[in-house]
């Protein structure tokens, strides 16, 4: 693996294949490392710093059939000012919505620094012909999306057709151009660490700016183990090509404690370069409220009821 050196622009399918077939992971050792990182004790100032970072890295998300323009307006307002009573709490990184609501979201974020991300390519299953995925994505971009979250073709992946997975991402990246492309691996479908690594490398080689754990639509969402496999893939990809890609963890991250453990992992394995919303994101709906509560607790010593924080 370490022997492959190529520039980002000249990656060949053969490079991808070589990387994919050299994916070796020992699950016992991996779990041990991840669990040991979870014993870090983050207190006082370092905790407050972490909590504010988490807010700034959040993609505040709603992806429901029941989403309306009204709901999106509420969420965007919260994204811009997560705690109206405490101006030291930053805005979140982005709001994440379905393509049909991108227009509304874009209008509401106005000139704040909150970005609008859209899930596309027939999120969450991706089980449609390529033409539909392209159309879905084009629509989201034309509506003003700053970022696009697509899903990989798990059907093709599990059938062993890695080439198809790769080609689809390449084609979608072409549509995106400068629009930030986040590729969802759906680790709950891939199951094994080797699969997660293969999918990570394929997605990175195909031009994804970010790789993302999950859609949040499965019972198995993100896990710190999956994130660890992905971050190692990102680092190996960087050492091959010089390109720094980002990671987004999403699905089932509901409390600040869990989120801090992800940050510790990023901090110790990747370094401070990645402690930044440009390269690390949390996709979440309920995480933000717990983080806001913890910030309040650190500053005042008291836990406050949910009704002290605005609805999003």
């Amino acid at each position, binding site marked *: 693996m370490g*022997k492959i050196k190529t520039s980002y622009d000249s990656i060949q399918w053969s490079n991808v294949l070589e990387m994919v077939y050299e994916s070796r992971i020992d699950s016992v050792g991996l779990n041990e490392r991840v669990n040991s990182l979870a014993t870090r004790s983050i*207190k006082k100032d370092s905790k407050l710093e972490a909590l504010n970072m988490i807010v700034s890295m959040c993609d505040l998300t709603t992806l429901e059939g029941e989403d309306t323009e009204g709901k999106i307006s509420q969420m965007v307002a919260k994204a811009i000012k997560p705690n109206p009573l405490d101006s030291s709490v930053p805005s979140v990184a982005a709001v994440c919505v379905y393509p049909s609501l991108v227009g509304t979201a874009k209008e509401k974020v106005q000139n704040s620094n909150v970005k609008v991300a859209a899930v596309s390519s027939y999120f969450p299953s991706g089980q449609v012909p390529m033409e539909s995925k392209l159309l879905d994505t084009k629509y989201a971009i034309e509506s003003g999306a700053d970022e696009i979250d697509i899903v990989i073709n798990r059907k093709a992946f599990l059938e062993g057709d890695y080439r198809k997975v790769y080609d689809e991402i390449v084609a979608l990246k072409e549509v995106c151009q400068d629009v930030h492309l986040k590729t969802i691996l759906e680790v709950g479908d891939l199951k094994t660490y080797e699969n997660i690594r293969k999918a990570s490398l394929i997605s990175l080689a195909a031009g994804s700016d970010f790789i993302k754990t999950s859609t949040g639509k499965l019972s198995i969402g993100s896990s710190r183990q999956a994130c660890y496999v992905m971050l190692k893939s990102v680092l190996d990809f960087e050492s091959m090509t010089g390109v720094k890609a980002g990671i987004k963890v999403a699905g089932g991250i509901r409390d600040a404690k869990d989120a801090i453990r992800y940050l510790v992992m990023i901090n110790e394995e990747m370094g401070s370069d990645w*402690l930044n919303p440009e390269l690390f994101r949390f996709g979440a709906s309920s995480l933000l409220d717990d983080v806001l509560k913890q910030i309040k607790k650190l500053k005042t010593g008291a836990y406050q009821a949910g009704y002290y924080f605005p609805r999003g």
Partner: protein
Amino acid sequence: MIDWQYSESIESPDIVSIKKKYTNYIGGKFVEPKSKKYINTISPSTEELLSKVPLSNEKDINNAVNSAKEGFEVWSKLTPNQRSRYLFKIARLIQERSREFAVLESLDGGKPIKESRDFDLPQVAANFFYFAGWADKLDLSWATKSLKPYGVVGQIIPWNFPLLMLAWKIAPALATGNTVVLKPAETTPLTALLFAEICEQAGLPPGVVNIVTGDGSTGSLIVNHKDINKIAFTGSTQVGKLIQKSLAGRDVGLTLELGGKAANIVYEDAAIDQAVEGVVNGIFFNQGHVCCAGSRLLLQESIHDEFVKKLEKRMQSLRVGNPLDKNTDIGAINSKEQLDKITGLVNEGVEDGGELFQTECELPGNGFWFRPTLFTNVQPSYSIAREEIFGPVLTTLTFRTPEEAVEIANNTEYGLSAGVWTEKGSKILWTADRLDAGVVWANTFNKFDPSSPFGGYKESGFGREGGRHGLLSYLKASS
């Protein structure tokens, strides 16, 4: 870009009250030393005086051995089931007071609280539980009518895992019906003395466990005492040889667990990221004060550069500092003497031509510290590749084929442990078969379990501790 520093997270030392002065524990009583002499024990992370413990002399050792003889009369006549109950009680008491023990271990020895809390103490309790279970089942394992306890066992233990080595020694000795005179290491006597309180709390009959402190001269008095029936020693090969010489010609049993210079062999088809973790754990665990530490990294030439790059990066994230900080990965070097030894060998390695890499971490002002260190470009003839450094210093050698890996791995007077890293099962078995080492870990390192026998080949010693084999170290054939 944010430079996120972790705030201090200190485990409170208030849980343990350290006395100004300690006494020996002989015949179930805490007694002043006849020598009237004491030695200081300091905290290696601050160099502050923690307490004073007896420097025991001949009279003290006489008293301890005599009390163990008296204790044997009682202990060996108990039913196996009664002995078992005492050991179970000790195990439970250790669990109850484990936080106290962990803090004291880190204060007196310098190891990070993360390790004393999550490794040492759980292992200590596990060993007492395990051998408690054996105490009434010896008959099921052998035709034990022909196997008898030795009687009075002298046990001399090192400073790297003070309480755990005590557990490795005392639990099987008591389970098999022996009584003991145990001497903890000069620099780390406090947890053994706290353990004496546990014996009292458990109501152990007087004389079954006797704990005497002192230096090398005290150890030598135990070895040379006429009424000792067996010596169990863990420590340096140099002292082990002296003990063996002193015992030559006498009817005294002996087991020795001595030094090591373990090879950690990484093949090109290993899971590299996990191998890096395993190598780090293999050498930097407990500041490298581990007899089975993976101190020689054997890398297949084809992966050398990539592996070293990843290893150096990982080493930079190791946090060196206050042992009581819950986020500390590497604590203090146990003593000034040990620090000097490590420094000397590392300087020699540089002079020989080894390429030195050390992490950039800040070291505290007081106390004994050594940066995590990696040597590359080392030849098998250098002293850093041959001598046991017993510190956070890893030496890298390279090989081309599995045959060569085995040859280099076995090219040492030691044979305590080894590691093999490959995703290919058949290669693990092929390699393990050919390694002269008491323990071979595959795709992991430094894993311990009370049921698994531990001990060396060649100058790493003889006799086994742990498991069924460990019981045999405390039983002898009787006519």
